């Protein structure tokens, strides 16, 4: 039972990371109807940047600076490579983001170097006891910070005029434009937000373990999350993130019991297998709206 609860706690931490990443995907999707495959690269760039900044300005300062810088990078990328393509087929834009992903990822990879790069976070692998269960501090922190970030996002969308503009543009782009919403700003802000979220997610995904060149794969696991939750659903991103995080971590910790014949841990596959299972039943995810199209 303790093992199970430990797995759940780790899964909640990872799930919070997935939820943050998925929120970035959803924000971009809602504003542009495009999946940005560049999110994993931004996540990795965020983690690497923070690990470089942490010794100089302290960890918290590094996280704040790193998040802002990655948001700015995402803004620039949107302006240079994505904005000219607005109005083209969505898959063309999606493939452009794949190209961006490769470029950002390789440039970031060059800064990782030969020695393992550590984040410089205060948690490491420390644990706290919560009701007899060892909960790793990094997972607790991830969950709490994700909660705060989600709360801030909700407040932003609810109470600021820019948030209102973004919701309006997501609902109906043309109508929003007719009401004076600057859709270009909405695109820019959504990319900036997604970049920032990816950087925060990267920090918590990297906490405890050294950053390697394959770090971005974690970011790809957020794609099944958004498919599971539905591409255009905030709630879906959070629920999907937690579900996939917990499922992955439970399967990973019971791997040797359930699948003794498999050497490589099957946990990494769980997000994708879950996605297949859900799509067979609900092609638009758990909370996604069904696409209605006019010919």
């Amino acid at each position, binding site marked *: 039972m303790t093992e199970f609860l430990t797995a759940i706690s780790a899964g909640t931490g990872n799930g919070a990371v997935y939820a943050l990443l998925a929120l970035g995907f959803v924000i971009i999707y809602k504003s542009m109807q*495009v*999946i940005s495959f560049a999110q994993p690269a931004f996540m990795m760039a965020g983690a690497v940047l923070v690990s470089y900044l942490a010794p100089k300005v302290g960890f918290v300062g590094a996280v704040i600076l790193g998040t802002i810088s990655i948001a700015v990078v995402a803004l620039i990328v949107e302006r240079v*490579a994505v904005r*000219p*393509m607005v109005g*083209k087929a*969505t*898959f*063309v834009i*999606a*493939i*452009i983001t*794949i*190209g*961006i*992903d*490769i*470029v950002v990822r*390789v*440039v970031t*990879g*060059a*800064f990782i170097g*030969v020695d393992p790069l550590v984040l410089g976070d205060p948690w490491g692998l420390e644990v706290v006891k919560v009701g007899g269960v060892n909960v790793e501090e990094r997972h607790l922190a991830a969950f709490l910070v994700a909660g705060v970030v989600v709360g801030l996002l909700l407040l932003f969308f609810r109470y600021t005029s820019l948030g209102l503009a973004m919701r309006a543009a997501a609902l109906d782009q043309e109508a929003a434009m007719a009401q004076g919403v600057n859709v270009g700003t909405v695109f820019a802000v959504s990319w900036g937000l997604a970049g920032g979220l990816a950087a925060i997610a990267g920090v918590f995904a990297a906490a405890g373990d050294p950053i390697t060149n394959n770090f971005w794969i974690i970011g*790809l696991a957020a*794609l*099944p999350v*958004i*498919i599971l939750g539905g*591409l255009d659903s905030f709630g879906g991103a959070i629920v999907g993130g937690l579900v996939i995080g917990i499922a992955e971590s439970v399967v990973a910790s019971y791997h040797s019991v359930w699948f003794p014949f*498999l*050497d*490589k841990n*099957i946990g*990494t*596959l769980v997000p*994708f*297998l879950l*996605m*297949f299972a859900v*799509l*067979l039943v609900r*092609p*638009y995810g758990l909370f996604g709206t069904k*696409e209605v*199209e006019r*010919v």
Partner: protein
Amino acid sequence: MTVSPVARSRRSRPLRGRPELYTSYRQDMALLNTRGKRVSVLLMVLVAAVLPMLLTDEFLTIAATGMVFAIGAIGLNLLTGYAGQVSLGHAFFVGVGAYTAAYLSGDPDGRYLGLGVDNVLIWLPAAGLVAAATGFLVAPIATRLRGLYLAVVTLGLVFIGEYVFSEWRELSGGGGIGREAATPILFGNNLARDGASYTEEQKLYWLFLVTLIVLAVLARNLARSKIGRAFAAVRDRDVAAGVMGVELSRYKLIAFTVSSFYAGVCGALMFVGVGQFGPTQFGLLMSIQFIAMVLIGGVATISGSIMGAMLIAALPRISSELPALFSFISTAPNEHPNIFEIEQVTYGVLIVAFLLFEPRGLFGIWWRARTYWKSFPFSY
């Protein structure tokens, strides 16, 4: 008005001196509908056939790799370019083909699974067919989905495939080591060994060339048939196509199956020259390479796929020349920036640049050059 016998006859000949005038539907739809095309294609095939006599083995290997890539790129172009179904899972089907071929031709008493059937004429079609069957099995899930959902699902396929390949040790040899590739025996002649009169590179080049020509002509014919027109309708507006009576799931199924066949053949041939391959090679990067070939070459063009594949195949060679030109680029993998990073970044940059500035790819550049010279000195 009487219809001239020329227009009525099914095997009408084009009029002399009027290359743009078609007098029958058949002429218009012909594969090589102008004399210029007939002559240049013939010349190109001839040049390609004698190239092994002229080039050094190093460049021959690049050209051969390019031709194998081209087979896979044509397959992806049929699915993504013609039928409009974005697939990030091409590498998975390439892997299925590669392992089928290696399994069939492998040594029955060797370390890994094998049947000892090393005749190219058997394992090459078989690899394509097994991959096609896999595509057929996956297609029902994929045809329920559209656009970006499909892209993500096929991405999942790559991860699952990579896991299965590296876990199935008896077949693949496992993560780091890999297994030997298929042995190409044709008419008792091992094409992957230097022979008395021709080297390994030359023989493999001819094998790949013949395969590519056959498959390219098949794809071109498919694209101009009823199926090809249905693909285009599905791509341009699937709802509208469905309303007009194009059975969506059927044509998506066909697109997936045919595309997987090409991927399988490509995979079977891909490692024949190198002789060894491991399961990690069929990752996301390979899928992206194929997408890059299609986009750089030209969406929904067969000749474009071949051009794009040649460029991608030549990239490692091109980037290995860079340190001589720019002293800050290193050849050592532990220094930055090194040629391997430059090569990968180039994929990304090429994809973005072509989509932004030349959406029709290399084929589009060729098209514009051709139109310019066709109407020279008039610019319109």
